């Protein structure tokens, strides 16, 4: 490993989720959501088993609202769901414990936030065919508490040691943590998720203005792409801060809603600019850990 960690001190603990059923809002707005232009729309949204969208696919163009690639899990117990959402880290191994796909292994690829609060997992498509809503999946959670001793300003969140290792991190000549990314999201394009928790959940790129998205080089994003969050400090929640910088992974697809778009699961943050994103052609967790 190119950057020192305290990974040998991390505890490996089980958390369990059940494959979630898709949910729809009740009357009277039922079942429509509103687009950024005020058009009611009815589309598949987050959760469930998604057979034909996977990490590595485009984040745009699906007829869906913040679609989760692969399989999504949660549990009804609110405090327990917090444990599931916070302790699960991208790259952790998961195993199906019940149902026809019992014993199949998968990988955590992201999390979703307020109003959803699910953990998103990759399983191969043949396994998805065998799964049922309600199947129990245990995640061998490991990563919360991880530190980089040589980069004390960098906080690591929701990131497994395996993903950290695969990211091929280096240190720049001026002592910053160099992280390969596909793009940097400017702060005015970060929307829903601001002010909310950064140990789990999501923060969304807002895509209502296609020109601004293209200008920032964000119009070709794929699910699983690693990106930087410019001028955002996610140390204790997500918020605007000059000089701060974050790193995250695109975990959910685009959305027609105002303030929403591809959802990011935060992996690292430095309030004082201790991360130097290195823009690279392709940095996707499909290639790194799947």
């Amino acid at each position: 490993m190119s950057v020192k960690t305290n990974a040998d001190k991390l505890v490996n603990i089980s958390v369990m989720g059940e494959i979630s059923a898709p949910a729809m809002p009740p009357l009277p707005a039922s079942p429509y959501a509103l687009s950024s232009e005020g058009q009611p729309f009815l589309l598949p949204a987050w959760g469930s088993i998604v057979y034909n969208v996977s990490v590595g696919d485009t984040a745009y163009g699906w007829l869906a609202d913040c679609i989760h690639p692969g399989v999504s899990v949660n549990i009804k117990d609110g405090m327990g769901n917090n444990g599931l959402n916070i302790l699960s880290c991208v790259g952790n191994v998961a195993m199906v414990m019940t149902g026809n796909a019992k014993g199949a292994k998968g990988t955590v690829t992201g999390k979703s936030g307020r109003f959803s609060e699910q953990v998103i997992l990759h399983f191969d498509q043949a396994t998805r065919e065998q799964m049922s809503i309600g199947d129990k999946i245990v995640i061998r959670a490991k990563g919360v508490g991880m530190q980089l001793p040589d980069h004390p300003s960098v906080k690591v969140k929701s990131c497994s040691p395996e993903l950290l290792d695969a990211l091929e991190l280096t240190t720049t000549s001026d002592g910053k943590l160099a992280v390969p990314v596909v793009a940097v999201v400017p702060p005015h394009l970060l929307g829903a998720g601001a002010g909310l928790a950064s140990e789990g959940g999501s923060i969304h790129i807002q895509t209502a203005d296609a020109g601004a998205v293209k200008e920032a080089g964000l119009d070709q994003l794929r699910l699983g792409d690693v990106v930087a969050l410019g001028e955002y400090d996610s140390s204790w929640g997500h918020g605007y801060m000059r000089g701060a910088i974050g790193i995250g992974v695109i975990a959910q697809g685009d959305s027609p809603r105002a303030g929403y778009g591809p959802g990011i699961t935060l992996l690292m943050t430095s309030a004082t600019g201790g991360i130097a994103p290195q823009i690279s052609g392709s940095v996707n967790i499909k290639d790194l850990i799947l």
Partner: protein
Amino acid sequence: MSLATNADQLVEMAVIGFVSQPTMRPGGYIPSSSGEAVVLPGMSGFIYNARVGDNAFGWAADHLEPGASTAHPELDKDYAMHYLTCIGNKAVITSGMAKGAEGIVTGEHARMLVDFAPEVGEMLCIGDGVQIRAKGRGLAFTDYPGITLKKCSPELINAIPLIETADGKISVPVTMELPIQIMGSGAELGPDFVDQDLMTGDRQLMADLGIDQMKLGDLVVIPNADHRFGRGYKPGAVTIGLCIHGDSVMIGHGPGILTLMTCAEPLIEWRIDPHANIANYLKIGTYA
């Protein structure tokens, strides 16, 4: 000069909430943007010593809600109170020692915020009924269909010195401009529900831009913010907001900005006026 509206078509309807008890999570701590754990008051109850018109910054408080904060214990009725109540609506206390006293709605956070005179506040008990004469939903400018009004009572619209410009726009007085990149918590909510916090974690930026001089009740402008159907970034859009609650120590949070007017195209202009505050326009709070 007041602009033509459809106010004579509006329905006036009663909604009721009850003065709410402050609540805390076990432990009570919230993390500050610099990572300190703090315990602070601010939300719910009645704030005896801060009113609309007072400073939004500088209190040893988090999300300070001026006046009385009211909620309804049944969720659907609480939503009705949230969605129907407009800023400037009249409220009357329906029970307890202050029964019959009148106030004015000044904001909508997780609770409705109602300004009462200090002597009324001293008689308030947690749980007292506060009935609001909700009026303003559906209000629109007759001649400006491109401008959407949200949560504006006719009384508030008539009290704000709006000017029709020569090029077919309206000019609104505001105390300051807020850059779009500091608009934070609340982006995940619809614009017809509560407010969106500005993000004050960058304290030096707040001082440099004078944002830390904001008062509760100030009218502010957010250029490039489209709040018609969400709270998002749109170049050229304009949103006029109202500061309803005080600053926060938490990253991504700060004074709450409630949407009053919004347009997707640049149909609203603004002029800086340090007295652009609803306490001034409605003669309440520190201007009473």
